[in-house]
């Protein structure tokens, strides 16, 4: 943070690469063979505590309410699959899942395209107003959402987007942080390759798409994953712009579902589990990318 802003983010893994855990396995492997260790005494309980809420969500979601009141916890006698069916019929989970997916895909696509274009121009092109544009982006980056929440609501309302998915998509098509992050990474790339492409007659867009972006897979993944997490989990903005159940996203829908079925815990847990399942599966499958993407977001600032 003490470094000047213009100093490009230097990355030990090479330009456009991850600074993070790529070498973790190799480095740990080099450190020696596995052997019994006292660290288990700390890690095993910690991991158990961290995982327990998820395990308990799973157990509750297939139990009857009576079965969840036993201690120590026991597995249910018969798996109550109908809890999931009940949740699904009590609330439009399929609609919420579809809405969330649409919002997430649109936001990720918008951010990838617009942040790449703007980030590249701000890193490489010298144009009138470029520095001012960058300063404006930095300024909006600092303002907390609560400050702009109400005016944004009024703007979205005047556009006729209120209570529609448009209200969730359009303001999130581009994020100042995405532009900033990509700009810093574009600056780390060697400019000679781009110059060569230009001399060979490639257009600016062609250079960006065919030459530059392929070197930016890791930072682009960071932008995509951070936008995905945001779109999938955002609550406050949907809460104030969406009223109709059929326009809700999963977090908002889930909170209304809780309000309606507060004491029916097995069904509530079944609904919560269903809403979290897609992201949990994506995370377990693509854990490496998630982990690396999140660590990139700190490297850029620290």
């Amino acid at each position, binding site marked *: *943070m003490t470094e000047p802003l213009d100093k490009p983010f230097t990355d030990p893994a090479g330009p456009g690469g991850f*600074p993070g855990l790529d070498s*973790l396995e190799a480095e740990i492997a080099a450190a020696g063979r596995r052997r019994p260790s006292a660290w*288990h005494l700390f890690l095993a309980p910690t991991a158990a505590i961290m995982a327990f809420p998820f395990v308990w969500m799973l157990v509750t979601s297939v139990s009857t309410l009576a079965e969840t009141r036993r201690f120590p916890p026991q597995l249910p006698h018969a798996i109550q699959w109908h809890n999931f069916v009940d949740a699904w019929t009590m609330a439009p989970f399929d609609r919420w899942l579809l809405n969330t997916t649409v919002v997430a895909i649109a936001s990720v696509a918008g951010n990838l395209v617009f942040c790449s274009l703007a980030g590249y121009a701000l890193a490489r092109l010298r144009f009138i107003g470029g520095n001012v544009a960058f300063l404006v982006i930095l300024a909006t980056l600092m*303002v907390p959402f*609560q400050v702009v929440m109400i005016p944004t609501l009024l703007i979205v309302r005047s556009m006729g987007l209120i209570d529609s998915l448009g209200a969730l998509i359009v303001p999130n098509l*581009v994020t100042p942080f995405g532009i900033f992050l990509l700009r810093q990474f574009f600056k780390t790339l060697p400019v000679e390759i781009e110059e060569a492409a230009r001399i060979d007659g490639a257009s*600016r867009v062609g250079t960006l798409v065919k030459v530059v972006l392929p070197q930016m897979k890791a930072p682009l993944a960071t932008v995509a994953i951070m936008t995905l997490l945001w779109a999938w989990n955002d609550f406050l903005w949907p809460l104030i712009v969406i009223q109709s159940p059929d326009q809700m996203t999963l977090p*908002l829908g889930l909170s209304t579902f809780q309000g309606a079925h507060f004491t029916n815990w097995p069904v509530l847990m079944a609904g919560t589990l269903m809403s979290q399942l897609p992201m949990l599966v994506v995370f377990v499958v693509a854990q490496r990318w998630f982990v690396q993407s999140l660590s990139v977001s700190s490297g850029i600032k620290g």
Partner: protein
Amino acid sequence: MQVADQAVSLPVRRASAWERLLASDHLAGWGFTSPAMILIAVFGVAPIAWSVVLSFQRNNLLSGGTWIGFRNYERLMHDPVFAHSVRITVLYTVLFVPISIVLSLAVAVALNRKLWFIRLYRTAIFLPVVASTVAEAILFNWLLDPYFGIVNVALVKLGLPAQSFFQDPSQALFCIVAMTVWGWLGFCVIIYLAALQGIPRELIEAAEIDGATHWRSFQRVQLPLLGPTTLFLVIYLSINALQLFDEIYVTTRGGPLGATTVVVYYLYEQAFQFFEAGYATAIAYVLFLGILALTVVQLLLGRRFVHYRS
């Protein structure tokens, strides 16, 4: 003269203004940035400007507001509920940030080695990162349910008194702290692990060859090298802690008896339950100033205590 002029200008015809513009970066620069800049102007800059106006208005979100000067800010200074919400928010932040930092550092150091089950440990600890705040809050509503929640069932079986958790004014905020520490731990551990990976092994080995114990080498070698990461996490967590809302909305709604009315929840109530949009925006500005001031202080302290490797 004329002949000489022609001799110079004919072979290399000077580009027209339009061609020069095309060849320069100006058009391309704005072509590339304008989609993003239009969106940022409409949904970033305009709302910021508008919010300044709004904070000087009485505005119920339905009709146009009336200008009331600084009265929102004056009211804010004498509003005991706001003062209370600031105290609650500060208390939450003071608890949440240090606990998260210490715990995640310990876990990251523990995870930074080759062990049996290391993948399992890491997955379990990272998993809450992808859980939405709403799901997290509903989950803890269930775990900490005073009547049927597993935590109370366990307490009673162990012969301890059952607790009211979110329904007890003296416990609710601590439950919120515990819940959000759980939700954020994975993120903090990921950041610390990445930083630990960046520390050259030779540095630690050198310290240990010189006779330093594990604890000593951690204290004197690793901890100082993690300074910039710690500073980042302290700032990032503080900013998020001061803006706490989702978990409060889903668990306690500011209660019981205002025990968890954090600033953003109070702001939300003012804007969307009492339709005091002007007053709510004034609260948001005070929050913004608070965040800004805290970040500046943290950066200045960081400059003094954190050492950067060149």
